[in-house]
């Protein structure tokens, strides 16, 4: 099934299993979601549990917090991750801290689904991944699937989790197809070792996992490919284990060169597996620019397969850290 259908399936199965699961957001009910990620939900579960909201991200994100505290399990949809910029308070400063502030008396089992990422020509205000807005938030979990299977299994796990979960959906994957075994459970906080190799550990997240996979193939290098899947709390054990085996680490990410999530991985792994490292770990990222609209430019915004492949080769064969393409191609410093 398609990635977006996996979302629908996970929602459907959780809503069937537990009638405290409710769902709301802009145009998610009657219109079945701007990206068709809620096809059939209104029909199946009715207008009490599946609701269209006014354009009021602050109110409906905060409403999810309140409803969760009163025993519901709300899932909400933030159409584009950027829209959380008008509602960050409700999730990060209220929702994520309620359990702590109530000394454990209330919990907040809610999921904020948001589409994210570039590649579709939506321009600079509708194309970022923005993990940094939510990453350093004790009390919040952050999940990002990379294919239909993980979308299905991780969304179910997120809805079942008793904590607030930010669930980031790479928009470019919605139409992608993949096998989905609905009996397969995945745990939040566990990385997926997608392929095993000996010479380098590649850590990635979301759609970049797919780029990394193709790049590994193109490079011909034997690599561990780790799909982090959960960014908070991320699977330190899995990454350390792999790095200690391969002695090399590369993170491939869609976030900007400055401030992206990959530094967290490199930093931790370096601190804790330093002596195991044969060469310098490094990140392959987007550049420090707003996402451009133009198709030719946007195609270069995210790390490309050839770029990642050649970086992997250089890292393994020469133990070198490649310069980002914008430096080697002389377009920026």
């Amino acid at each position, binding site marked *: 099934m398609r990635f977006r259908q996996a979302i629908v399936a996970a929602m459907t199965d959780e809503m069937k299993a537990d009638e405290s699961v409710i769902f709301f957001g802009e145009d998610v009910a009657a219109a079945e979601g701007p990206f068709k990620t809620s096809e059939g939900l209104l029909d199946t579960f009715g207008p009490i549990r599946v609701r269209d909201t006014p354009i009021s991200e602050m109110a409906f994100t905060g409403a999810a917090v*309140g409803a969760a505290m009163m025993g519901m399990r709300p899932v909400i949809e933030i159409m584009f991750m950027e829209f959380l910029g008008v509602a960050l308070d409700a999730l990060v400063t209220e929702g994520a*801290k309620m359990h702590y502030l*109530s000394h454990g008396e209330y919990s907040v089992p809610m999921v904020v689904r948001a589409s994210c990422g570039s590649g579709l020509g939506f321009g600079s205000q509708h194309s970022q991944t923005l993990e940094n807005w939510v990453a350093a938030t004790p009390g919040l979990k952050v999940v990002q699937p990379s294919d239909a299977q993980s979308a299905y299994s991780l969304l179910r796990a997120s809805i079942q989790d*008793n904590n607030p979960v930010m669930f980031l959906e790479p928009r470019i994957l919605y139409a992608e197809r993949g096998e989905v075994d609905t009996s397969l459970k995945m745990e939040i906080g566990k990385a997926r070792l997608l392929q095993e190799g000996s010479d380098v550990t590649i850590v990635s997240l979301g759609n970049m996992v797919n780029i990394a996979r193709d790049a590994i193939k193109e490079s011909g290098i034997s690599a561990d490919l780790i799909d982090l899947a959960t960014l908070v709390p991320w699977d330190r054990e899995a990454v350390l284990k792999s790095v200690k085996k391969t002695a090399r680490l590369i993170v491939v990410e869609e976030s900007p060169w400055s401030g992206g999530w990959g530094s967290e991985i490199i930093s931790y792994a370096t601190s804790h597996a330093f002596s195991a490292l044969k060469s310098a770990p490094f990140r392959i990222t987007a550049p420090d620019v707003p996402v451009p609209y133009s198709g030719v430019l946007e195609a270069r915004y995210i790390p490309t397969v050839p770029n990642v492949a050649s970086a992997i080769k250089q890292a393994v064969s020469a133990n070198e850290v490649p310069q980002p393409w914008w430096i080697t191609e002389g377009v920026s410093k």
Partner: protein
Amino acid sequence: MSTSLERRTALKDNELAWYERMLEIREFERRTNELFAAGEIRGTTHLCVGEEALNLGLATVLNPDDVIAATYRSHGIALAFGISTHSVMAEIMGKSTGCAGGIGGSMHMCDSSVGVLPTSAIIGGGMPVATGAALAFQIQKKKNVAIAYFGDAATNIGAFHESMNLAAIWKLPVIFVINNNVYGEYTRIDLSTPIEDLHIRAESYAMPHTQVDGMDVYAVQKTMQEAIDRARRGDGPTLVEAKTYRFSGHSRADQALYRPEGELEHWSKRDPILVTEQALTKKGLLDDAKIAQLKEAAVATVEAAIVQAKSDPEPTLKDMFSNIYTSAKKVG
């Protein structure tokens, strides 16, 4: 010692108990102010002197399983709703016996047994939360209501607008209560807000609205009861503007020197303690001797709470790491 729920239930149909609770709040705030000045309380405090009748009016008409999402100006709400003087004072002193284990502090009161959701230190933070609690009640077919309780100046924040609209369109059992105490921090409301009667903002959402004398506990009860009935009937939200006055400064050591001359004196005549005293005296429930006796009792209660809180244990380092995440999966 009585539980929060018992202290809440004790208010039922007991007018004298309302007065006693108001005295307790007043004395609590007086002492809190002193302790802050003396450096025995850190951070910040926001006193609710002048808002006691409103606090009691709410606590007495709501059921303990109704909920309220209030603000940092939280002591009066906490005490009126049933949390003990000791538990509130211990929280303000950061002790492990505080109602939030000393983790929250003055701005963050909480007690699920009497429906006090963690109070928010962010303007507008509680409004969507109350709206969502009401959504849960609606879906669960419970007859409960949720209260969003906030200040006059908070009516200028985006979350007010969004929450009111959402509550109206979904006909949720939530009541938005403006505690119009005339000031937002150091600024008179007329300097930040171009209208006088804040409750008319409900017109933007076709929501019923009204104004009430927040100094008169009976008036508050009557007005709130109507709104609560409407909500429980399934007829949706109401905006209630309660006119009170902030007799103290905004927070910490603020002396409120920016008040226009005569304003404090003007409002002093409507001091809710005074207003209640007069009403109860007229009803024959109070006389001067009784008043003096109850005031002494309040002093003693608060003093005892302070003494106990002071000697209570600090939270442990483990407490700092507790309640960040809850058990990973739902039960069942």
